[in-house]
């Protein structure tokens, strides 16, 4: 009588496999991960007063530093914008080869797709360290690294946009004897233009944040000022740099948001 019906047993087993087993695995993984990370609530609690004291040391920010920070902040924006544009141009060329409907040959397409996938798999940190090692310190390695980091994502998005274009204008132009370049110029680009711009602007947001990090490895920009101030325990200077960085990030995001909405909205209205 107390033996459960086979149906109920199966239900229990199903429940176990669906909920209990994953929960057990997750608990085990979390335990392992917290051991490796040396999770230490005591250290966190002990550090709290230090955190509060840190804010005390940071206030007020050194206002007289702001003029001196304008140069590095501008450099950060310049590195991000030039890197993004270079990356977008490269990505556009590769995407033309990687899009199934525009690629000159199947082999070329596979090659281009493979290159884009490989770049996306490569962590950005490796690319950045690589360029700093080759070119040395300064803005140049930063720009090159950002350009290469952008190619994988933008190239894939561009190629996907190319493949999704309405094929009718392309066929019509091909039927009246247009060359491949003419078809791309007059039938493909007008269709994908908004998405190209919107994606490039989105990548610019990503690159601004990355460009702040670039300063840490010596590739120029305001990140360098922040890290140096923190290392030298000059917290008021550091806070000034943090404020400038926040303003920079928010302003660039607002700008790219406004531009993106303009580009997309205008095209939707047409």
């Amino acid at each position, binding site marked *: 009588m107390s033996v459960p019906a086979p149906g109920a047993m199966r239900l229990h087993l199903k429940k176990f496999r669906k909920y209990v087993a994953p929960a057990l695995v997750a608990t085990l993984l979390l335990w392992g991960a917290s051991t490796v990370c040396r999770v230490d609530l005591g250290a966190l609690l002990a550090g709290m007063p230090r955190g509060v004291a840190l804010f005390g040391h940071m206030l007020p920010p050194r206002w007289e530093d702001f003029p001196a920070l304008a140069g590095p902040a501008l450099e950060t924006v310049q590195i991000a914008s030039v890197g993004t544009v270079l990356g977008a141009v490269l990505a556009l060329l590769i995407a033309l080869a990687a899009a199934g409907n525009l690629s000159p040959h199947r082999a070329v397409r596979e090659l281009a797709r493979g290159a884009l996938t490989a770049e996306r*798999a490569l962590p950005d940190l*490796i690319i950045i360290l690589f360029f700093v*090692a080759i070119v040395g310190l300064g803005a140049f390695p930063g720009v090159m690294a950002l350009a290469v980091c952008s190619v994988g994502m933008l190239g894939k998005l561009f190629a996907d946009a190319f493949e999704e274009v309405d094929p009718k204008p392309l066929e019509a132009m091909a039927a009246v004897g247009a060359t491949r370049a003419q078809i791309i110029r007059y039938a493909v680009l007008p269709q994908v233009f908004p998405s190209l711009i919107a994606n490039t602007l989105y990548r610019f947001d990503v690159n601004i944040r990355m460009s702040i990090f670039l300063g840490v490895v010596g590739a120029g920009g305001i990140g360098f000022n922040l890290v140096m101030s923190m290392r030298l325990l000059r917290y008021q200077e550091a806070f000034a740099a943090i404020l400038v960085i926040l303003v920079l990030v928010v302003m660039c995001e607002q700008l790219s948001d406004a531009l993106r909405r303009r580009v997309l909205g205008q095209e939707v209205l047409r």
Partner: protein
Amino acid sequence: MNGTISLGTGRRKAEQRHRRYYERYLWTGGLLVFLFGWNAAELGLSARLFIEGLPHFLALVAEMFPPNWQVLTGGRVWWGILETLSMAFMGTFLGAAVSFVLGILAAGNAAPSRAVREAVRTLMAAERAVPTLVIILLLVVVVGLGPFAGMLAIAIGSVGMLGKLFAEAIENADPKPLESLESAGATGMQVIRYGVLPQVMPSFIANTLYRFDINLRAALFLGVVGGGGVGFDLHMAMSLFRYADALAITAVVLVMILLAEKLSDYLRRKIIGQEVLQ
């Protein structure tokens, strides 16, 4: 007759539109080219610099080969890999747990009050604006160097995005089940548990898995600024000009990232697929 006239005006209109289109794009395009050139010049970039760098580039690549696999035998790199994976996993989990609560508090149809909702929304927006670099630099002062600081930085860095996406998913949930639960006398908690969560969990889990992919890459960066993990080893190898070591570490890191992405892809497909089938 009538037909030709309308055709004429149509064509003129089309031409006008065409001209306006080009004027607009030529202006913005010209401005962009100018800005690009000016910025590039200001940064001291030039084609010459690029060409002069090429031999250097080839020399460095040559120096990387063959990769020095010896560096992997010590166990230091493998421990770094383990630390990086742990930081990303634990940080994503903690961040997701906090986002879960904050997301509910920030959703217009689930928040206890308007003031709470606005406060949580502002908090999450502020977090999204702060670069991870700033977070880790502050955390290193609080809890010291090491993977614990990195893990906390990843957790905090995930909350803004995951919380926002979760709140949006809750707001987009189908209101009908919620209303019928309410009319049957369910409490607020019960409505969330039985009406909202079943609808939004798949997207929450999928977003968390996606965030894990991002966080694994972020964990590499954190190594450079004192967050522990294999990013530190990689940075050290590069700074000490041990390029062959760096290539070997890079290979291992690549395999780690590819495997982790495959796994999260698989889980995502499994979870979303299963929920869609229900």
